[in-house]
């Protein structure tokens, strides 16, 4: 199919982008790396979009050390996240996640902000944000606001970003000295969306477990987290399988996903404790 776009405008800067969104009468779509949006348009799953291209807006890319946190610009590309020394040192989960995301050509263009705003429940970065307890920074006509990752992902492909707003940055807490961050997933092929994926962050305040591909949004497995805080791995696996309600599709059934979630948790715990390669 051929895309049926409503229009296209390239934003010179952030305020211009927000102005363009305001002018687009609810049809505005922010174009960054375009790795999901353009594919959807080319299948006419989305038509009439007024594309607001922010890919050349300066100041929205890169990683800054803010002391307690890292601030990651929304236009930072997957490939940059994977290789960035600050990310590797202080948020290794994100660097590890990159190797699971699609293929090199997509990682070269796709942006972390785009992946989060798209909010695909099968994508890695949204689940990573939940596990890390990230904060998302959103600009609109009234300036900047922030949202906790827990409040950001609302439903399938839906976030708390409003029509006239743009996700501009993410801050993640820097890992503590002995913090462990682990991502485990099962996919049919390298680069495919995971059948199930699981992020485990073990820090002094407790464990955080998030999952991808088991619900309409990435989710935190709070009961499993509680069990793991008590050192009960079997209990955590049982709690995890009980608290998720994964979908069935052509790749795998809900039963398979529920079973594998438990396997991945065991593997993540083993990896976190260092007895699993």
């Amino acid at each position, binding site marked *: 199919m051929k895309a049926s776009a409503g229009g296209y405008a390239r934003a010179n800067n952030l305020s211009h982008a927000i102005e363009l969104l305001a002018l687009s009468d609810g049809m505005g779509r922010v174009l960054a790396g375009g790795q999901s949006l353009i594919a959807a348009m080319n299948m006419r799953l989305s038509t009439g979009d007024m594309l607001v291209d922010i890919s050349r807006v300066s100041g929205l890319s890169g990683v800054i050390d803010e002391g307690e946190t890292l601030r990651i610009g929304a236009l930072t590309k997957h490939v940059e996240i994977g290789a960035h020394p600050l990310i590797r040192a202080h948020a290794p989960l994100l660097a590890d996640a990159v190797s699971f995301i699609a293929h090199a050509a997509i990682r070269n263009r796709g942006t972390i902000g785009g992946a989060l705003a798209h909010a695909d429940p099968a994508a890695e970065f949204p689940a990573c944000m939940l596990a890390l307890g990230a904060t998302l920074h959103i600009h609109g006509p009234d300036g900047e606001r922030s949202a906790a990752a827990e409040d950001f992902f609302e439903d399938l492909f839906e976030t708390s970003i409003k029509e006239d707003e743009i996700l501009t940055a993410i801050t993640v807490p820097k890992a503590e000295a002995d913090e462990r961050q682990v991502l485990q997933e099962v996919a*049919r092929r390298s680069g495919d969306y995971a059948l199930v994926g699981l992020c485990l962050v073990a820090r002094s305040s407790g464990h955080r477990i998030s999952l991808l591909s088991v619900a309409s949004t990435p989710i935190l497995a709070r009961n499993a987290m509680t069990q793991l805080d008590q050192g009960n791995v079997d209990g955590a696996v049982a709690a995890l399988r009980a608290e998720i309600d994964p979908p069935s599709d052509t790749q795998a059934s809900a039963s398979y996903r529920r079973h594998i979630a438990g396997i991945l948790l065991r593997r993540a715990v083993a990896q976190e404790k260092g007895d699993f390669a």
Partner: protein
Amino acid sequence: MTVQFGNPDRPNSYIGKTVPRPNAGRLVEGRGKYVDDITLPRMVHVAFVRSPFAHAKILSIDTEDAKSVKGVLRIFTGADLAKVCTPWVAVLEHLKGLKSPPEHPMAMDRSCWVGEPVVAVVATSRAAAEDGAALVDVDYEPLPVVADMMTALDASTPVLHPEMGDNLAFQRLHEEGDVDGVFATAHKVVSAHFKTGRHTGVTLEPRSILVDWNPAEGQMTAYHATQAPHMVQTVLATHLDVPESRVRVICGDVGGSYGIKVHVYPDEVATAAISKIMARPVKFIADRLESFTTDIHARDHEIEAKIAVDANGKILAFDVDDWTAIGAYSVYPRTSAIEGNQVVNLCGGPYDFANYRAKTTVVFQNKTPTCQYRAVGHPIAVAITEGLVDMAAAEMGMDPVEIRRRNMYADDAYPVTSPANMRFEGLSHHQSMDKLMGLMDYDALRADQAEARARGVHRGIGIASFIELTNPSPFMYGIGGARISAQDGCTVRMDPDGSIVAMSGVTEQGQGTEAMLSQIVAEGVGVLPSNVRVITGDTQVTPYGGGTWASRGAGIGGEAALRSARALRDSILEVAAAMLQSDQASLDIRDGHVVDIETGAERMPLEELGRIVYFRGDTLPKGLPRELVQTRHYITSEYPFAFTNGVQASYLEVDIETGVVTLLKHWCVEDCGRIINPQLVDEQIRGGIVQGLGGALFEEIHYDDEGQLLNGSMADYLVPMAGEMPDMVVGHVETPTKESELGAKGAGEAGTAGAPAAVMNAINDALRPLGAQVTQMPFTPERILRALGAIED
């Protein structure tokens, strides 16, 4: 003079060597010319409104809104096209009982599968045509859907085509020997239920056609991505009422075919019909979703089968009950009964046994039509056969290699006729197995497997012997009444500069046909391959031929090329002998020079001969033949098919916690007779293996109970990709066919034929100590965990 194949140092020894592909540079530089690269004056584009229902009555079609879209020129319904295009019925006389209703280029009053074309919107651009298509309002009344294969013949299932009487398209039972008696008394009987996943070919270049009807010339030109230009010529002429001589099919570069592009598609015929009505060039390029819903599907089989063996592991009998569902229509003109028929022909193929029963039941359903895809029927027959052989070996505690050695036809047993009535001229099962054992170091691999198992790592080795049908005679299609040529031809000419042009009826799909032809012609005439230009894919230019299918390009097209090249060589030498006042038998052509055959001393360059013949013919003896163009045709006549054979092996690891299979290594030893170009053959084998591995692990088209296709994108339909592919080791045994001088048999389908069975057997070898077994392809992580009993619902 014959080619001294046994002497690798013979002059012009290009046959048997890897030579550069003449079209590779063009393709790598992005200068290929595919149908979508062609733009003609006044060209328009067509997009199709397709049925969203698997089965529905078309009550009304409202095109008013669509007509108002900027750029939309005309809109056609099935009834509009029926005025200029007759329907077709895809049956063949030799497939007794095969039935199928008439099919039109677009649905008339009823749609029978999701994706069937219903309305055609023609516009100045594809985008505008799609805008218009989105506004066409079709009022459907959904009808009961026949989705399930195994209940299609039940009395309670509605009959899809009432005029056909029932949902049975074709049934064939073949029986040889005393099957029931043997099974009643055999030492061991092992049975299993197999399923192969419905999948499709997924060509990089989608189906593409551009048809230009020129009423001033009364000529229709179709630029078409096809495997069989002459077949398409006949079809368009027949159904659009144009003399066959006035239809020209031009097939330029093609981005992969795999059997997908050898069939007649309703939307492509519709495009031609629209061109005839509008008298303008009309282009149709399938998009990826259209490809998944309308390219032919294949391999949708369910099989109950058993094997009987004696106490020594000698195979006594096979009994196979195969079912397949082919969609709503048999596909024109090759029909959709061939795949099931092949299963009957090929089961038990490598083995010397006496009692055989095989039945195939082919039913209609409301899904995309199925038809021939690379290695038609072979992967199914090999999976059944090799699966059962492995299971029998396991039951007897016998090594899987040993049971095969005890049963494969002896290498000196030929010619032989199999219990399925297949005639084998010469195969090399034992030599191939010996070579495989050496390449894979079987004993060391078994030791590695045991060592891994001790660590709790579950690895498996799977072996699959196979036969492959190649070089088909008219017994495949022509005998049934189809105008599909089993013969092929080649015209070779020398131009004044001494260069050679070869025009062949076989076609280039990206697999290297033109390279193969160039080296045969180069050797046959005696010039450098770079001095041979090959022209394929133009019905107005090349000799009439069948094209590319059933692994026939090298064996049939190559032999025609060799014979025409040798004939041209003789013509050249006849002139040269007169010019040089020498005995023709004392002369040869080497590297573009006429030379003394004994000493190799150069006597005259071909360009000098060309100069004299074309510009100073007055200096040659009056009456001297000077035809520097020769045409030869070739058809097999001794055997209906040239069977090849081979054996594959897979080594893999199963993660028994997740069900994920990791392919560690893959081997294939095959015998395609004379190898013309080792690299091209190896890449054919590797590519074929990859498609076989796709069927084994990834590829599966899913439908729901209402006949809705659930995975019509590259994200949801999983093709095999490089990341999951193992290293492959390819070896060869060469048993040339004696039917031709070239001795080549086909190599294009062997990889696909054997790979799924090798993987299945390897997975089951890994799972056997755990008491689990899988027989339903693709072997997804979930199916493996379910076989292990690991999943609670």
